[in-house]
């Protein structure tokens, strides 16, 4: 690891990843956009597109406002079978550290449990993230989930 990070920032970074997973797994969609900067990028992209240089992503948002619109959609407009999500996230791998800006990669697996059904592996991959220090603490300026599970089991309603 060539990048350097102070202990306090490292601890905050670990806390950010843990809090993010905890919030999403709890289904607190209104809090989810608060992990991001106003002009953030949030993408969920099949590995195929990522590796072949195709720009299409399954979800592709370019602002905190778009994340709020998604949260509204989940609650009010997208008819779906409700399900639980459970993230298991590996330790963040620091790719680059600048003053108040960190490029981070982390492996993840998301399990899906539909009500009264068996738990299945829903989506696995890695996130490619840019985390920046803001007055309110560390925020994601960019979160890209590059997923190996290119065949989505029917639909993707909730954010990873």
């Amino acid at each position, binding site marked *: 690891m060539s990048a350097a990070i102070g202990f306090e920032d490292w601890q905050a970074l670990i806390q950010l990843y843990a809090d993010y997973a905890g919030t999403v797994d709890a289904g607190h969609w209104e809090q989810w956009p608060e992990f991001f900067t106003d002009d953030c990028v949030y993408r969920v992209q099949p590995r195929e597109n990522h590796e072949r240089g195709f720009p299409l992503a399954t979800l592709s948002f370019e602002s905190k406002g778009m994340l709020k619109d998604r949260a509204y959609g989940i609650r009010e*407009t*997208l008819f779906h079978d409700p399900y639980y999500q459970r993230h298991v996230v590996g330790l963040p791998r620091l790719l680059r550290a600048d003053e108040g800006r960190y490029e981070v990669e982390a492996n993840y697996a998301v399990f899906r449990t539909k009500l009264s059904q068996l738990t299945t592996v829903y989506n696995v991959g890695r996130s490619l993230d840019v985390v920046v220090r803001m007055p309110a603490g560390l925020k994601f300026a960019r979160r890209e989930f590059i997923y190996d599970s290119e065949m989505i089991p029917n639909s993707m309603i909730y954010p990873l």
Partner: protein
Amino acid sequence: MNAPIPRAELAASTMNWERGTSRIPFAVYNDPALHKQELQRFFYERHWCYVGLEAEIPKPGDYKRTEIGERSVILVRALDGAIHVVENACAHRGVAFCRARHGNAQAFVCPYHQWNYALDGRLRGVPMRHGVKRDGVVQGGMPADFNFADHGLTRLKVAVRGGVVFASFDHDVEAFEDFVGPAVLRYFDRLFDGRQLKILGYNRQRIPGNWKLMQENIKDPYHPGLLHTWFVTFGLWRADNRARMVMDGHHRHAAMISTRGNAGAVSEVSRVSSFKQAMNLHDPRFLDIVPEAWWNGPTAVMTTLFPSVILQQQVNSVSTRQIVPDGHGHFDFVWTHFGFEDDTPEMTRRRLRQANLFGPAGFVSADDGEVIEFSQETFEAKPAHRTLAELGGDEVADTDHMVTETLIRGMYRYWREVMAR
């Protein structure tokens, strides 16, 4: 060739049609034997199936692995530039030898015994064909009358129109243009007018429902303004829009054509109180719609080509959606989003943003897969029952409005004709 499946296996007792095709027996979605017969009659005989876009294989040697029905096929551009579609099954032991999803090759080689094929499927090399000499004696080898020409890969008939590639296992299939028919071909040509296409990427989803349900979903103009709040709220698809439902002469293909109308008040159209009258976007760029000259009016044209593909234009978002069945109860749905070579960077960005409405996570598409899954659940549990598709009566005819299920009735009229042959 596959032996015909005896009619007796078709669960005829539960296949009780009422009122033409407006009441569809659940059994059409349920029966494994019926499914095998559908594969034969719709995917492997007399029909053209979608395999991809020319832009996916731009250079000589480029190939893409895909499926027709439940058979693996390879779409490939040969070294002379010609497009071929061959079955991914070695003539020797049946190995589906091509495992990469895409790539570039000079030849196809089966790893099992190194049989070697030209990109057009012709057999070129068989190791130990002439036997192996030991102590001056030739041992083994293929029979003297082994003819390379008899043992190539299965070659499919190919049709390319407007940069879209279709193929058929049936070399007696009618011309592609006749297959689509003039009424629907007009809308095919509107989208694929000869401009070079630019691939934007793929989405893949596995939907636990019978493959026909996706054809029905895009032959059903009734649901978009009810299931998909976004369509109504932003005027993209609602019952009072100017619309036309058009079918080919066999009623197997269709185009749903709509022109965007009022955005805004919705309750007087849908009469459903749950809609979000005051829904506003935090970021309106999701719907940064810019009309394009080639539209010639309609803001949305959804074309179903039976059995294998849906062609989507919804404002600035365009895609193909391939239907790949896997047994009677599942299908894979493969989305290829694209643009055109003359798109500005802004238009490309716009197409990508609007793609958030479509696909497995789309604001107006994710729930289509969900409702298909829930329909299939009921079909499995209650095989003697039937669905009801009687909006607009029980006749089959083009309409100049969208308050009808006539396209679904038309599709099943065709289905019954073909399955009764």
